[in-house]
């Protein structure tokens, strides 16, 4: 065994032990509770800031980012519904061609 191989083996043992130790702590409620709380506070602060900016923007009568996102999403949903209708039409045509009860249906 070369010195490198020996060092590598020791490293692997250390790495595995360290990872297990850290995992034990990251799963501990002592760490998880405050970390979750800190994340929650940071998220709420960001939301409050964004809401304040959107309020100012909306106050000028301009569409906010959220308004635009909602509109774009509704357009996508409309496209999705059109595809649903196309598929129903395809199924109806398939049924007319092959009325077998074994054909997969939704």
């Amino acid at each position, binding site marked *: 065994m*070369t010195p*490198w191989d020996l060092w*590598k083996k020791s*490293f*692997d043992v250390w*790495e595995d032990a*360290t*990872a297990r130790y*850290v*995992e034990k702590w*990251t*799963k501990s*409620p002592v760490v*998880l*509770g*405050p*970390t*979750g*709380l800190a*994340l*929650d506070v*940071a*998220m*709420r602060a*960001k*939301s409050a800031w*964004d809401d304040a900016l959107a309020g100012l923007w909306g106050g000028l009568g301009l569409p906010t*980012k959220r308004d*635009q*996102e*909602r*509109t*774009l*999403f509704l357009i*996508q949903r409309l*496209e*999705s519904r059109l*595809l*649903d209708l196309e*598929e129903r039409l*395809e199924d109806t045509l398939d049924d007319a061609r092959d009325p077998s009860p*074994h*054909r*997969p*249906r*939704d």
Partner: protein
Amino acid sequence: MTGSRPYPSDREKWARRLANLSGLAGRARPPVGQTPHDCVFEENKWRLLRYRSAVAPRWRRPVLLVPSLINRHYVMDLLPGKSLAAYLVAEGHDVFVVDWGTPGDEDRFLGFDDVAGRYLDRALRRTARIAGADRAHVLGYCLGGTLAVVHAAVQQGRIASLALLAAPVRFEDDGPLSAWTRSATFRPDAVVRAFGNVPWQLLQGAFHMIRPTLGLSKSVALLDRAWNDEFLDGFLALETWGHDNVSFPGACFEKYIVELYKRDALVKGELRLLGRPARLSAITCPVYVVTFAHDGIVPHESARVLLDHVTSLDKHHLHLAGGHVGAVVSRAASKGLWPALATFFRDRDR
């Protein structure tokens, strides 16, 4: 390449190691996702891709690959010789894959039901129709497997068989992800309200925290095997994939965390999809569950447990050595996992 001798001497290894590491920054990144394919359908950001085959498929029903929502699909087509998709094509399967794409800001409203219900249904329908088959085999990987299971629990009419790679079904386990997401102070709704889509950087940070020493461990592995060009290309390809992540659509993330992780609703039979109950006992098609012994992301029992709940008589479990990603793209996978999957689909196609 290792030259005429299969294994170089230590001196040669060090010389190659140093040469490869010193040229690492300028080394061409291996091209990923290179198996020829065509986009056969697209909706919103997701696309359905079909891999090209030089010859007509030998099997009646196509195979649909469903990757995780937050990773790129090309992990299943990483490099020539390390591509599950190319292997299945070579075995005579007609292979399709869902490329979930990159969500836009407006996709914060995209729900779990849209993805697991509508999009997957559409992918299955198109796959079967394009291939001229009544049903398709489904191969779900990680979260993609969970989506496929939820879909099958509600509407399995177009699914010929279900193969699942490290797909969690029970979320209350002893893994770190379960502990973090089930913590009472973790509020996914607050994250979604603040960010819209959950940023990939946040998700990647969380995945790094599963094993914080992994970066160091990878560096040592790189130093150890940098003499091997094949290893180096595979390493760089995986790193390319590992840093090419996708944000999680907000509403979808919220339901995923609350219903699946916090309430463990899927395994309890309490999950609903598109207003219909998603009961695992409703799954009757052939099921093949593959788990990995060193999977730090999906503890193998949380995936295997599916077999205790489905009604299928034709159900099998394959437990392999290796980690969550390595076991799917490694050289060993091309000799064990891939042939096992190809055989499973082939035998259920008769």
